[in-house]
């Protein structure tokens, strides 16, 4: 049977206890304690101690704890340690070697502590362990000495400077255990000088930062500088993290000094146009104390300066590129449209590049800086759009928004593919969102008019494009106050209505069975297409439709009535076009002419001569339209001959008078088979 003695969670077997008692058969309490105290003193004073002595010491301590009075032993050790450190203080310590000596002493104390494992368990829990007791004695007798403390403090600060340099230069010797040991020793909140030391360490870092800033040549290009700062920060971070006593709070304070020295104080020097051109996205991605580097540069003190600088930058960029576009000698529509294209691309590129820079080129906390700079960008474009004197364009009433509208028109005309790239159109509409109310209304009127014209001269492949652009406008242009959303919605309805009427025409073609003539009849919703009804329309109320066309018109009206019995249709003759074939001087031509022109031409074909008066009677047209068309056909195209009232052939470009005669020019020749006739406009002088 094995008996077990239990005391304070420790247990030894009966056999072990018997062995221990046998080994201490001649035990003497005082002798044993003295042996232990001498052993401790010997270790602390560097006397060599064999492993056997350690064993003896351990056994004796153990025996005392088990069979005698551990409290007495503890008191004696306390006294011995006090005497030892008192004696050290009186030894006139060599400060130069103090740090090394402390390192050795610390190791010795740790060694001693291992001898007292059992004693530490036996003593009252309120008492310190032997190691802690020794350290507290060390602090009490050595560190509280002003001279030593001051020395240590100085050494620590010097070590911080030296080791920071090691880290910054990426030297190999990064061992900072000595520094850490001293700092750990001094880390005692109860020590009266501790707070001061913490503050001194932070200030020491600040001095290091200032010295570095003053001694090194920095490139103050903001992105190069940010890169340098990032590198420095990473190294400092590594160094600071390796110093044990620096807690989070102290770390924040050190980084605040870093920010203050390297960023806030330097920020005004970083403000230049270069800060708005960034190809190095990662440069501003450094985060210090939970904020990105740009947040410190773009501070309350600098933001007005930066915003103004940004506006100037945008203006200068636009102006300098605008000057490079040659606006002289615009001799053709092609040259004019080329100029519209160049100006638009210039403006849109500036917008897109800057938007990209703001949205993805810089990084700030919660996009605060990005959002503010975007406002500045939008403000700039708003200024450009609403003030004509800012940039001399030389075309389109010197107004950017007119250039942009013109560009969209040209873009749609020239993009009849199914999926054109709408990126540029989206940017243009975003820019146009800056239009103020009055100009916005002008834009809507102009756009609606151009949309209407485009649809009238429809290329079926552009319908999808038209719709997509209206959709972009609807999503982009309705956010500001005072804007009428219905204007854009109506444009969407126009496109939809146009598609409906195209379907209707297709149905008519199928049902009417008139394969010899292609019909393109559009009956549009008056509410959406109110812009189509102009003053010209009222002049054609008594128009007489030529016989060849009458049958088609009647067929269509019957068809429409059958499908939509509650609708009233009003024909807009000024928008009608007729393609007809006519045999002239040995050749058949295909003429594409406005409807009014076709009526006049039709009657002239069927008569040797006509007069304005006879045409009025035959067509029901107003005099002005007849004269306009006669002038077009005679002067511009030479299709008819103009005789005066005496039947004398008039001189070229002579004015048309009442009583003059007109006849088809039977000698007309043209190399082309298909001729499109555009009526000239006549203005009264």
């Amino acid at each position, binding site marked *: 049977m094995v008996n077990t003695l239990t005391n304070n969670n420790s247990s030894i077997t009966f056999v072990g206890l018997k062995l221990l008692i046998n080994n201490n058969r001649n035990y003497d309490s005082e002798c044993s304690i003295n042996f232990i105290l001498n052993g401790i003193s010997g270790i602390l004073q560097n006397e060599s101690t064999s492993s056997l002595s350690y064993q003896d010491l351990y056994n004796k301590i153990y025996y005392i704890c088990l069979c005698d009075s551990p409290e007495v032993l503890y008191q004696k050790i306390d006294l011995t340690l006090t005497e030892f450190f008192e004696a050290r203080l009186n030894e006139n310590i060599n400060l130069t070697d103090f740090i090394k000596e402390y390192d050795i002493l610390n190791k010795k104390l740790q060694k001693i502590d291992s001898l007292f494992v059992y004693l530490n368990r036996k003593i009252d829990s309120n008492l310190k362990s032997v190691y802690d007791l020794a350290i507290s004695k060390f602090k009490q007798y050595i560190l509280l000495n002003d001279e030593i403390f001051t020395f240590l403090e100085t050494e620590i600060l010097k070590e911080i400077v030296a080791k920071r340099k090691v880290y910054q230069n990426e030297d190999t010797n990064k061992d900072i255990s000595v520094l850490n040991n001293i700092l750990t020793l001094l880390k005692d909140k109860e020590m009266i000088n501790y707070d001061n030391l913490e503050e001194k360490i932070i200030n020491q870092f600040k001095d290091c930062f200032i010295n570095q800033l003053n001694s090194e040549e920095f490139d103050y290009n903001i992105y190069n500088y940010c890169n340098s700062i990032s590198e420095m920060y990473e190294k400092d971070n590594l160094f600071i993290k390796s110093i044990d006593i620096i807690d989070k709070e102290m770390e924040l304070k050190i980084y605040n000094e870093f920010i203050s020295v390297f960023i806030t104080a330097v920020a005004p020097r970083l403000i230049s146009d270069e800060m708005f051109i960034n190809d190095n996205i990662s440069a501003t991605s450094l985060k210090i104390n939970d904020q990105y580097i740009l947040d410190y540069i773009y501070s309350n003190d600098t933001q007005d300066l930066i915003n103004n600088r940004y506006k100037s930058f945008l203006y200068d960029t636009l102006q300098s590129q605008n000057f490079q576009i040659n606006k002289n000698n615009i001799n053709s529509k092609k040259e004019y449209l080329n100029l519209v294209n160049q100006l638009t691309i210039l403006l849109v590129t500036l917008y897109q590049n800057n938007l990209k820079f703001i949205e993805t080129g810089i990084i700030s906390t919660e996009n605060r800086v990005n959002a503010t700079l975007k406002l500045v960008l939008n403000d700039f474009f708003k200024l450009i759009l609403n003030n004509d004197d800012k940039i001399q364009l030389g075309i389109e009433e010197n107004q950017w928004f007119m250039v942009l509208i013109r560009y969209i028109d040209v873009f749609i005309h020239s993009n009849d593919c199914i999926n054109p790239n709408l990126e540029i159109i989206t940017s243009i509409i975003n820019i146009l969102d800056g239009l103020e109310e009055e100009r916005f209304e002008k834009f809507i009127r102009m756009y609606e008019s151009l949309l209407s014209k485009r649809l009238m001269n429809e290329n079926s492949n552009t319908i999808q494009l038209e719709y997509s652009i209206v959709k972009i406008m609807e999503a982009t242009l309705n956010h500001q106050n005072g804007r009428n959303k219905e204007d854009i919605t109506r444009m969407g309805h126009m496109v939809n209505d146009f598609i409906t009427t195209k379907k209707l025409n297709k149905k008519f073609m199928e049902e009417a069975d008139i394969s010899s003539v292609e019909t393109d009849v559009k009956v549009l919703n008056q509410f959406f297409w109110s812009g189509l009804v102009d003053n010209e329309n009222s002049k054609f109320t008594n128009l007489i439709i030529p016989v*060849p066309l009458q049958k088609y018109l009647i067929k269509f009206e019957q068809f429409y009535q059958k499908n939509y019995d509650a609708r009233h249709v009003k024909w807009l003759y000024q928008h009608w076009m007729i393609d007809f074939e006519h045999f002239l001087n040995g050749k058949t031509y295909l003429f594409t002419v406005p409807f009014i022109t076709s009526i006049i031409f039709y009657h002239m074909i069927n008569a040797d001569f006509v007069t304005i008066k006879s045409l009025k009677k035959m067509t029901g047209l107003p005099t002005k339209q007849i004269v306009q068309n006669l002038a077009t056909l005679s002067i511009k195209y030479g299709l008819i001959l103009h005789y005066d009232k005496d039947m004398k052939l008039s001189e070229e470009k002579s004015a048309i008078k009442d009583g003059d005669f007109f006849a088809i020019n039977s000698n007309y020749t043209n190399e082309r088979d298909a001729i499109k006739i555009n009526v000239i406009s006549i203005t009264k002088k």
Partner: protein
Amino acid sequence: MSEVPQINVPQFDENNNIVSQEQQEEPRFKIKKWTAVGIWSWDLDSADCAICKSNLMEPCVDCQNDAHQQHSNSSNPQNSMNNKDGCITATGTCGHSFHLHCITKWLQKRQVCPLDSQTWDFKKYNK
């Protein structure tokens, strides 16, 4: 001085149409394409729907909202057309006209004309 040509004044019928030459000769005016534009409006007394306040020429408010949602979700104009095509108007025996959607909704609550409170009877659907 050039020779004065013989004037052949065309003949007209009672409708002011030229009668003689076209019927006698090969057609000299052969139409190949007819492009015409017209605008339509309701042949109704009312211009606006008194229920949704929209013009009767445009879809009712519900259809406009539906179309707008479809329009937002689709880049295809055909998709947003479907509902609008179906938004016709209706006239009651009292002579008042509304969007069919609007008056149908109204009649679920009250069986009278919203304007004159007479019992509502459909006279016709306008399309």
